[in-house]
C-alpha cells in the first residue's frame, strides 16, 4: 500500500483516508464502510432463487433490478434490517488487490453481536477490482439499523505467491454497486448436473 511502490504491485483502497491509523488497531486488516447503493430483495418478484436453473419454476435472473429494488441512499440515512432479511450492499471503498494478496471480508464483531451478519462468501481473489458486494443479513431477534458510511466490515489480508495475472480478466465484475454476479457452472458441475437432468426437465 506504500505510495512509492509501482501502482500495479500496490493494494489499492480508495477512498482510504485514515492512513495514520493504518493497521495500528488491527495489524492484518482494515475497516471498510457501507456504500450508498442497496438491493432490497422482494419475495413477490421471483418464486425462487435457482442459479443452476434446475427447476421448472420461473426463477430470478442475475439482474439486480429483476431480483429486487435497487436504491441509492445518502450517507446517514437509516436502513432498517429486519430479522431474517437479506439485503445486498457494497463497500464504499474501491478495492484492487495485487497478484500477491488475497483478502477475506469479515463482519466487525461490534455489529455481529447485534445480529448483523455481513458476508457469507468472503474470499476476494488476487487481481479483483471494484467495490465489494456485501450480503447483509440480520440473524438477531430485533431490527438492526445500519447506514451508508457505517464501518460494518473489515478486510483481512493474506499473502499469496505465484499468481500471474497478465492478460487475465479480474475475477469478478469491475463495478461500483451491488451485483449478483452471473453463475457459471464449472466443468464438473456441467458433467454432474446437466447430464443428470431427467428428459422432462430439459
Amino acid at each position, binding site marked *: 500500500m506504500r505510495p512509492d511502490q509501482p501502482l*500495479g504491485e500496490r493494494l489499492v483502497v*480508495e477512498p482510504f483516508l485514515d492512513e495514520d491509523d493504518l493497521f495500528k488497531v488491527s495489524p492484518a486488516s482494515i475497516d471498510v464502510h457501507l456504500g*450508498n447503493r442497496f438491493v432490497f430483495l422482494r419475495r413477490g418478484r421471483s418464486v425462487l432463487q435457482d442459479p443452476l436453473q434446475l427447476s421448472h419454476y420461473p426463477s430470478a435472473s442475475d439482474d439486480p433490478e429483476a431480483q429486487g429494488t435497487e436504491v*441509492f441512499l445518502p450517507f446517514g440515512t437509516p436502513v432498517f434490517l429486519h430479522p431474517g432479511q437479506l439485503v445486498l450492499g457494497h463497500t464504499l471503498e*474501491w478495492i484492487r488487490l495485487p497478484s500477491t494478496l488475497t483478502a477475506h471480508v469479515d463482519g466487525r464483531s461490534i455489529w455481529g453481536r447485534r445480529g448483523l451478519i455481513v458476508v457469507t462468501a468472503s474470499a476476494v481473489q488476487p487481481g479483483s*477490482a471494484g467495490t465489494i458486494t456485501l450480503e447483509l443479513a440480520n440473524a438477531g431477534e430485533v431490527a438492526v439499523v445500519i447506514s451508508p458510511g457505517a464501518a460494518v466490515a473489515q478486510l483481512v489480508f493474506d499473502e499469496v505467491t505465484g499468481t500471474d495475472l*497478465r492478460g*487475465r480478466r*479480474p475475477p469478478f465484475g469491475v463495478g461500483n454497486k451491488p451485483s449478483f454476479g452471473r453463475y457459471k457452472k464449472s466443468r464438473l458441475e456441467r458433467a454432474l448436473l446437466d447430464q443428470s437432468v431427467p428428459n422432462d426437465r430439459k
Partner: protein
Amino acid sequence: MPSEWQMDCLTSRIRSLHLEIGRVAEKQPAHAATHRIHGALRSILKRFDRLLDDARRRAVPDQVRSVSALEHTYGVVAKELTRVTTMFRMCDRVDSPRIPFEILRSLSHLASIFAGAPVDIVVHLSTEYNYEITSVSRQFERYRWTTWWHAAVASPDGPDRDVLLMIFPSYEVGTTLLHAAAAHELGHVLAHRMDAEISTAVGNTITEVLEEFTEERREFVEVQGVPREMKDSSSENAWRVLLYRDSLITKWIRETFADLVAARLVGPAYLAVMDRLSVGQRGDIFHPPIAVRRRIIKSYLKRHLRHVFVDPAWRDVKQGEAPKPARDVATRCGSAICERALEPLAALLVGLNTPLADRQILADGVRRVADRLDNLAPPSLDLSITNIGEVASAFWLMIYASARYRVSIRRYAAFCERYGWQNTTEIADSALNSMLLNALQNLDVKLRWESTR
C-alpha cells in the same frame, strides 16, 4: 361562466395533484432537495384551491361583477395548475437508481462556485437524448411564486439554497464520460450570474453584424413575415425570422458562452460529447447550428489552450464534422454574431480556473490519471482535497484525462488487452466509467474528511 361541474373538475384536479405530490414526497424521504420543491408546490396548490373556493362562494348568479371575477379566478387557477404540473413532472422520479447520485454532491460544489451561492442538484432522466438545466428559484420567479419558494427553502442555518434541476439522457446515464456535458450546463449558471457583463461585452458585436446584414434581413422579412409571438414559429423557417429579435440573439449568445465554459474546463472532451449528443441535430431556436458551435469551440481551443488543441490524442475528435448549417440569412447572421462574439466572451472567462491552463500541471495530471486507470484504480487515488476549489479542479481534470484515455486508441487497446477485454470493449468501458464515478464521489468524501480535522 364555467359550469359548476367544470369548477368541480378543477377543484378535484387540484386536490388529487396535491395528494399525488405528497405521495411522491413520502416515497423519496432521502432526497431533501426535492422535498423543498414538493413542499412549495403543495403550498401553491393549497393557496389556489382556497382562492377558487372563495370565488365560488362569493359568486352570485346574475351579478355581472361577481360572475366575471369567478371567470377570472377560474382561468388563473387553471393556468397555475398547468404550471404546477409542469414543475412536478420535472422533479418526479428523481430517485431512480439509474441516476448517478454519486457525482451529485461534487457537482453541487461546482455549481455553487458558478452560482456564487450554495445550490443543490436534482437529476431527472429524460428519454430525449439531451442535457438541460433549470434553476428552480428562477422558474418560481418567472411564475411569480417567489413567496412560496422562500417559505420552502427558508433555513435558520444559512442562506437559501437554490435547487438546479438537471436533465440527463436516460439511456446512457451510466456513461460517466458523457457527463462532461455538465460543464456546458453549469456554464448557463455562470451565464446567468454574468448576464450584464455578457450583454456589455457583445453589444457592439451584435450591432455591427446586424448592420452588415440590414439589406438581406429586410428582404428576408418581407418574404417570410415577422411572427408576433414565439408560438407562431411553427411554420418552416419562421424561427429564423425571430432571430432578429434580441431575445433570440441572446439565447444563441448564452449557448455560445456555455460552450466556451465547457471548452475551457474539459477541452476537446466536450467536443467528443457534443458529437454524441447532437447526432442528427442542426440547430434550433435555442441553439446555434452544431457546425458553428464546433467551429467556435475549436477556435477557442486553438487560440487559448493551444497545448490542448495540438495534443494528437484528440485528432479524431477534432476532425469530426457536423452537418452544414442552413444558408438562409438569419442563420448566417446569427452564426456570424456568435463567431465574432468569441473573443469578447473568451475575455470574460480569463478568470475562470481550469486545470487545462498550465501545460505542466495538466501533463502531470493526465499521466497520473492514466496510470490509475491502467491499474484499475480510481483516478482520485492519493489525491488530497481540502477545499471546494480543489474539488472543481480535480473534477474537470479527471473528466478530461479519462476522456483522453478513452480516445487514445493505442493506450486503450493495451488496457483492454491487459485485462482480456479485447473482444468485449463494452466491459472495459463499463470498468472505466465505474472507476471515474467512484473517483468523482471520492472528491466529496475527501472534502468531508478534511472538514472534520
